[in-house]
């Protein structure tokens, strides 16, 4: 196995384990109030997704083909509009229905 490639997977694995262990342990111990824990879970999840993209899927702004990055960026915008818009509408509707 190639040294460099092997190191990439092992670093990714170690980071992913840490970013998984932190939220799971905090939830198991109820170490923080729920609202703060939710923030920790969200931050750890976003970081872990970035770790997976970088070390497992080998996304790299310099070496990944431009059109692939474009497709991913476009999808991110699409998801932001559709998920953000849906949640906005449903939360607003929920608020109006329970008035």
């Amino acid at each position, binding site marked *: *196995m*190639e040294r460099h*490639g*092997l190191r*990439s*997977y*092992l670093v*990714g*694995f170690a980071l*992913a*384990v840490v970013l*998984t262990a932190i*939220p*799971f342990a905090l*939830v*198991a111990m109820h170490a923080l109030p*729920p609202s703060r*824990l*939710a923030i920790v*879970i*969200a931050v*750890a*999840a976003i970081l*872990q*997704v970035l770790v*997976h*993209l970088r070390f*497992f*899927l080998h996304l790299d702004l310099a070496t990944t*083909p431009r*059109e*692939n990055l474009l*497709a*991913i960026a*476009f*999808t991110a915008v*699409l*998801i932001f509009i*559709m*998920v953000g818009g*849906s*949640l906005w509408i*449903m939360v607003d509707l929920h608020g109006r229905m329970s008035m």
Partner: protein
Amino acid sequence: MTVMAPERKTSSDAYEQRALGFWLYLMSDAVIFALLFATYATMVANTDGGPSGKTLFSLTNAALETMLLLVSSTTFGFASLSSRTGNRSAVLGWLLVTFLLGLGFVCLEIREFMGMIRAGAGPDRSGFLSAFFTLVGTHGVHVSVGLTWILIMSGQVFLKGLSVPVTSRLFRLGLFWHFLDIAWVGIFSIVYLPGLL
């Protein structure tokens, strides 16, 4: 890395284009999962007086599933690395390990689903449970398809060896498998952990 012969370069260009096509597929899948997440977030409070995540979810089970999938993602990486150095038996070995870990994940998930359904918390119980089974079930089906694909690719590596097309297919299977682990990060961060707060 050695300089490639011209015709070899054309074929690797073609495989890069297929990788773009596969990325487009993965991104469309990402949109599906994102919308299932949005549906779940909208429905999570609608328990209709039935059980909520707090009584149904097991942190240990979720942690175990997470570890199985994460380790399988890493062992698939080892298979990819072995394919680059042309080590056929190592590729087959790591694919087998990946398959067994993925199978363990699916078994844990099926056991969890069966337990919930037996306890009267099936997908027909409430809006929350419909959304839960749709989201987590869709991911489980993806993993099962991935397992089938791993078997097929193991057969191809065994019968055809690590030819250029086989290695290229193995690469796309790797993209798929790593992508499923990312979807799972979303599931434990949006479904299981917040449900147990």
